[in-house]
Protein backbone atom coordinates (compact mmCIF):
# COMPACT_ATOMS: atom_id res chain seq x y z
CA UNK A 1 0.00 0.00 0.00
CA UNK A 2 3.06 2.24 0.07
CA UNK A 3 2.54 5.08 -2.40
CA UNK A 4 2.94 3.18 -5.65
CA UNK A 5 1.70 5.99 -7.82
CA UNK A 6 2.75 9.09 -9.68
CA UNK A 7 0.53 12.15 -9.71
CA UNK A 8 1.07 14.08 -12.89
CA UNK A 9 -0.18 17.00 -14.89
CA UNK A 10 -0.58 16.87 -18.67
CA UNK A 11 -1.35 20.36 -19.92
CA UNK A 12 -4.25 21.26 -17.60
CA UNK A 13 -5.42 17.75 -16.79
CA UNK A 14 -4.42 15.75 -13.73
CA UNK A 15 -3.77 12.03 -13.89
CA UNK A 16 -2.60 9.27 -11.60
CA UNK A 17 -0.39 6.38 -12.65
CA UNK A 18 -0.71 3.58 -10.14
CA UNK A 19 1.67 0.62 -10.02
CA UNK A 20 0.13 -2.67 -8.91
CA UNK A 21 2.70 -5.48 -8.62
CA UNK A 22 1.11 -8.81 -9.46
CA UNK A 23 4.14 -11.01 -8.95
CA UNK A 24 7.85 -11.16 -9.68
CA UNK A 25 7.36 -10.90 -13.40
CA UNK A 26 4.12 -8.98 -13.70
CA UNK A 27 2.94 -5.48 -12.91
CA UNK A 28 -0.22 -3.65 -13.77
CA UNK A 29 -0.23 0.06 -14.41
CA UNK A 30 -3.56 1.78 -13.81
CA UNK A 31 -4.22 5.17 -15.39
CA UNK A 32 -6.84 7.41 -13.87
CA UNK A 33 -7.53 10.74 -15.54
CA UNK A 34 -9.49 13.51 -13.90
CA UNK A 35 -11.93 16.15 -14.97
CA UNK A 36 -14.15 18.45 -12.92
CA UNK A 37 -17.90 18.23 -12.47
CA UNK A 38 -17.99 21.85 -13.59
CA UNK A 39 -16.35 21.08 -16.93
CA UNK A 40 -18.51 21.93 -19.91
CA UNK A 41 -18.73 19.83 -23.09
CA UNK A 42 -15.89 21.75 -24.71
CA UNK A 43 -13.60 21.10 -21.75
CA UNK A 44 -14.59 17.44 -21.74
CA UNK A 45 -13.63 17.31 -25.42
CA UNK A 46 -10.29 18.95 -24.66
CA UNK A 47 -9.52 16.45 -21.92
CA UNK A 48 -10.44 13.59 -24.25
CA UNK A 49 -7.96 14.84 -26.83
CA UNK A 50 -5.25 15.32 -24.19
CA UNK A 51 -5.81 11.76 -22.99
CA UNK A 52 -4.21 10.59 -26.23
CA UNK A 53 -0.90 11.50 -24.62
CA UNK A 54 -1.24 8.91 -21.85
CA UNK A 55 -2.38 5.35 -21.30
CA UNK A 56 -1.28 2.16 -23.10
CA UNK A 57 -1.47 3.90 -26.47
CA UNK A 58 -0.31 7.26 -25.15
CA UNK A 59 1.93 9.33 -27.37
CA UNK A 60 4.28 9.98 -24.47
CA UNK A 61 3.70 6.81 -22.45
CA UNK A 62 3.37 4.09 -25.07
CA UNK A 63 6.98 3.02 -24.78
CA UNK A 64 7.07 2.96 -20.97
CA UNK A 65 5.68 -0.55 -20.50
CA UNK A 66 7.84 -1.93 -23.27
CA UNK A 67 10.98 -0.23 -21.92
CA UNK A 68 10.50 -1.61 -18.42
CA UNK A 69 9.83 -5.00 -20.02
CA UNK A 70 13.22 -4.82 -21.76
CA UNK A 71 14.90 -4.01 -18.42
CA UNK A 72 13.09 -6.92 -16.77
CA UNK A 73 14.26 -9.31 -19.49
CA UNK A 74 17.78 -7.93 -19.40
CA UNK A 75 18.05 -8.13 -15.62
CA UNK A 76 16.71 -11.69 -15.48
CA UNK A 77 20.05 -13.12 -16.53
CA UNK A 78 22.04 -11.04 -14.02
CA UNK A 79 20.39 -11.79 -10.68
CA UNK A 80 23.72 -11.89 -8.81
CA UNK A 81 24.79 -8.48 -10.02
CA UNK A 82 23.87 -4.90 -9.33
CA UNK A 83 24.39 -1.57 -10.99
CA UNK A 84 23.62 2.00 -10.07
CA UNK A 85 23.31 5.22 -12.00
CA UNK A 86 23.35 8.38 -9.92
CA UNK A 87 21.01 10.28 -12.17
CA UNK A 88 20.64 13.84 -10.98
CA UNK A 89 22.74 13.33 -7.84
CA UNK A 90 21.80 11.86 -4.48
CA UNK A 91 19.33 14.38 -3.12
CA UNK A 92 15.57 14.56 -3.19
CA UNK A 93 14.64 17.98 -4.53
CA UNK A 94 13.35 19.87 -7.52
CA UNK A 95 15.75 20.17 -10.38
CA UNK A 96 16.30 22.39 -13.41
CA UNK A 97 16.62 19.31 -15.55
CA UNK A 98 14.14 16.51 -16.12
CA UNK A 99 17.05 14.07 -16.26
CA UNK A 100 16.84 13.05 -12.62
CA UNK A 101 15.63 10.14 -10.55
CA UNK A 102 14.90 12.38 -7.59
CA UNK A 103 11.37 10.99 -7.20
CA UNK A 104 12.65 7.41 -7.13
CA UNK A 105 15.22 8.35 -4.48
CA UNK A 106 12.48 10.11 -2.53
CA UNK A 107 10.27 7.02 -2.64
CA UNK A 108 12.97 4.64 -1.40
CA UNK A 109 14.23 7.05 1.29
CA UNK A 110 10.69 7.39 2.66
CA UNK A 111 10.20 3.65 2.43
CA UNK A 112 13.34 3.06 4.50
CA UNK A 113 12.13 5.59 7.08
CA UNK A 114 8.72 3.93 7.38
CA UNK A 115 10.24 0.45 7.54
CA UNK A 116 12.93 1.49 10.04
CA UNK A 117 15.69 0.31 7.73
Amino acid at each position, binding site marked *: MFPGFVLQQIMNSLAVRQVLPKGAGRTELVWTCFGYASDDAKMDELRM*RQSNLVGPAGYISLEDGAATGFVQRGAAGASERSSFVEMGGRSVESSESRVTETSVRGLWQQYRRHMGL
Partner: protein
Amino acid sequence: MDAALQLAVENLIARYVHAIDDDRLEDWPGFFVEKGRYRITTAENFEHGLPLSIIYADSRAMLADRVSALRHANIYEAQRYRHLVSSTLVERVDADTARATSNFQVVRIMHTGDSMLFASGRYLDRIRLHGDGGRPQFEERVVIIDSRSVDTLLAIPL
Protein backbone atom coordinates in the same frame (compact mmCIF):
# COMPACT_ATOMS: atom_id res chain seq x y z
CA MET B 1 -32.96 -8.50 -43.73
CA ASP B 2 -31.42 -6.29 -46.40
CA ALA B 3 -28.77 -8.55 -47.91
CA ALA B 4 -27.16 -5.83 -50.01
CA LEU B 5 -26.76 -3.61 -46.96
CA GLN B 6 -25.36 -6.50 -44.89
CA LEU B 7 -22.79 -7.25 -47.57
CA ALA B 8 -21.80 -3.62 -48.03
CA VAL B 9 -21.19 -3.20 -44.29
CA GLU B 10 -19.32 -6.49 -43.96
CA ASN B 11 -17.20 -5.51 -46.95
CA LEU B 12 -16.28 -2.17 -45.35
CA ILE B 13 -15.29 -3.89 -42.12
CA ALA B 14 -13.30 -6.56 -43.99
CA ARG B 15 -11.39 -3.95 -46.00
CA TYR B 16 -10.69 -2.04 -42.78
CA VAL B 17 -9.17 -4.99 -40.89
CA HIS B 18 -7.16 -6.14 -43.90
CA ALA B 19 -5.63 -2.67 -44.23
CA ILE B 20 -4.46 -2.76 -40.62
CA ASP B 21 -3.28 -6.39 -40.71
CA ASP B 22 -1.41 -5.79 -43.98
CA ASP B 23 0.40 -2.82 -42.41
CA ARG B 24 -1.32 -0.40 -44.81
CA LEU B 25 -1.85 2.02 -41.93
CA GLU B 26 -1.87 4.95 -44.33
CA ASP B 27 -5.19 3.62 -45.63
CA TRP B 28 -6.74 3.62 -42.16
CA PRO B 29 -7.90 7.26 -41.99
CA GLY B 30 -9.60 6.93 -45.40
CA PHE B 31 -12.13 4.51 -43.95
CA PHE B 32 -13.60 7.43 -42.01
CA VAL B 33 -15.51 10.53 -43.06
CA GLU B 34 -13.61 13.78 -42.56
CA LYS B 35 -15.07 14.44 -39.12
CA GLY B 36 -15.18 10.76 -38.32
CA ARG B 37 -14.83 9.65 -34.70
CA TYR B 38 -12.77 6.71 -33.50
CA ARG B 39 -12.14 5.64 -29.98
CA ILE B 40 -10.98 2.55 -28.16
CA THR B 41 -12.24 2.02 -24.64
CA THR B 42 -12.76 -0.79 -22.15
CA ALA B 43 -16.06 -2.53 -21.42
CA GLU B 44 -15.69 -1.44 -17.81
CA ASN B 45 -15.37 2.25 -18.73
CA PHE B 46 -18.17 1.97 -21.29
CA GLU B 47 -20.59 0.33 -18.86
CA HIS B 48 -19.87 2.95 -16.18
CA GLY B 49 -20.37 5.78 -18.64
CA LEU B 50 -16.75 6.91 -18.17
CA PRO B 51 -15.49 8.57 -21.33
CA LEU B 52 -11.74 7.94 -21.01
CA SER B 53 -10.43 6.29 -24.14
CA ILE B 54 -7.21 4.50 -24.99
CA ILE B 55 -7.18 6.21 -28.39
CA TYR B 56 -9.49 9.12 -29.19
CA ALA B 57 -9.97 10.88 -32.50
CA ASP B 58 -12.72 13.15 -33.73
CA SER B 59 -11.37 13.77 -37.20
CA ARG B 60 -9.60 11.95 -39.98
CA ALA B 61 -6.68 14.30 -39.42
CA MET B 62 -6.17 12.99 -35.88
CA LEU B 63 -6.04 9.46 -37.29
CA ALA B 64 -3.40 10.55 -39.79
CA ASP B 65 -1.42 12.08 -36.91
CA ARG B 66 -1.46 8.77 -35.12
CA VAL B 67 -0.19 6.94 -38.20
CA SER B 68 2.55 9.51 -38.53
CA ALA B 69 3.52 9.02 -34.87
CA LEU B 70 3.67 5.25 -35.33
CA ARG B 71 5.82 5.53 -38.42
CA HIS B 72 8.18 8.30 -37.32
CA ALA B 73 8.10 8.90 -33.58
CA ASN B 74 7.10 6.01 -31.38
CA ILE B 75 9.45 3.12 -30.74
CA TYR B 76 8.04 -0.33 -30.08
CA GLU B 77 8.88 -3.93 -30.82
CA ALA B 78 7.93 -5.01 -34.32
CA GLN B 79 4.51 -6.64 -34.29
CA ARG B 80 1.60 -7.42 -36.53
CA TYR B 81 -2.09 -8.09 -35.96
CA ARG B 82 -4.53 -10.62 -37.31
CA HIS B 83 -8.14 -9.60 -36.87
CA LEU B 84 -11.06 -12.00 -36.76
CA VAL B 85 -14.41 -10.29 -37.13
CA SER B 86 -17.73 -12.06 -36.81
CA SER B 87 -21.41 -11.84 -36.00
CA THR B 88 -22.01 -8.49 -37.68
CA LEU B 89 -25.52 -7.22 -37.01
CA VAL B 90 -26.62 -4.36 -39.24
CA GLU B 91 -29.51 -1.97 -38.75
CA ARG B 92 -30.52 0.73 -41.22
CA VAL B 93 -30.97 4.16 -39.67
CA ASP B 94 -32.03 6.06 -42.79
CA ALA B 95 -31.32 6.14 -46.52
CA ASP B 96 -27.72 7.20 -45.93
CA THR B 97 -26.83 5.66 -42.59
CA ALA B 98 -26.56 2.30 -40.91
CA ARG B 99 -25.43 1.03 -37.55
CA ALA B 100 -23.50 -2.17 -37.03
CA THR B 101 -22.23 -4.24 -34.12
CA SER B 102 -19.55 -6.87 -34.65
CA ASN B 103 -17.41 -9.12 -32.50
CA PHE B 104 -13.68 -9.05 -32.95
CA GLN B 105 -10.58 -10.81 -31.74
CA VAL B 106 -7.08 -9.63 -32.51
CA VAL B 107 -4.03 -11.85 -32.40
CA ARG B 108 -0.76 -10.01 -31.93
CA ILE B 109 2.29 -11.63 -33.50
CA MET B 110 5.64 -10.33 -32.31
CA HIS B 111 8.73 -10.32 -34.52
CA THR B 112 9.93 -13.30 -32.44
CA GLY B 113 6.94 -15.30 -33.65
CA ASP B 114 5.26 -15.26 -30.23
CA SER B 115 1.54 -14.98 -30.75
CA MET B 116 -1.10 -14.10 -28.24
CA LEU B 117 -4.78 -13.26 -28.18
CA PHE B 118 -4.18 -9.56 -27.66
CA ALA B 119 -7.72 -8.22 -27.54
CA SER B 120 -11.32 -9.25 -27.88
CA GLY B 121 -14.37 -7.07 -27.94
CA ARG B 122 -16.90 -5.46 -30.19
CA TYR B 123 -17.11 -2.71 -32.75
CA LEU B 124 -20.01 -0.26 -32.50
CA ASP B 125 -20.22 1.47 -35.85
CA ARG B 126 -22.17 4.27 -37.41
CA ILE B 127 -21.70 4.11 -41.15
CA ARG B 128 -22.34 6.62 -43.93
CA LEU B 129 -23.38 4.47 -46.85
CA HIS B 130 -22.40 6.92 -49.58
CA GLY B 131 -19.13 8.49 -48.52
CA ASP B 132 -16.07 9.39 -50.59
CA GLY B 133 -16.26 7.81 -54.02
CA GLY B 134 -19.75 6.54 -53.21
CA ARG B 135 -18.33 3.94 -50.82
CA PRO B 136 -19.37 3.36 -47.22
CA GLN B 137 -17.28 5.05 -44.56
CA PHE B 138 -17.35 5.20 -40.77
CA GLU B 139 -18.89 8.25 -39.18
CA GLU B 140 -18.03 6.72 -35.84
CA ARG B 141 -16.30 3.55 -34.73
CA VAL B 142 -16.23 2.73 -31.04
CA VAL B 143 -13.96 -0.20 -30.19
CA ILE B 144 -14.88 -1.74 -26.85
CA ILE B 145 -12.24 -4.08 -25.45
CA ASP B 146 -13.63 -6.77 -23.14
CA SER B 147 -10.60 -6.73 -20.84
CA ARG B 148 -9.70 -3.91 -18.46
CA SER B 149 -6.06 -4.25 -19.38
CA VAL B 150 -3.78 -4.11 -22.41
CA ASP B 151 -0.58 -6.14 -22.58
CA THR B 152 2.49 -3.87 -22.66
CA LEU B 153 1.22 -1.31 -25.13
CA LEU B 154 -1.28 -0.65 -27.88
CA ALA B 155 0.54 0.82 -30.85
CA ILE B 156 -1.33 -0.35 -33.93
CA PRO B 157 -5.01 0.67 -33.86
CA LEU B 158 -7.65 -2.01 -33.50
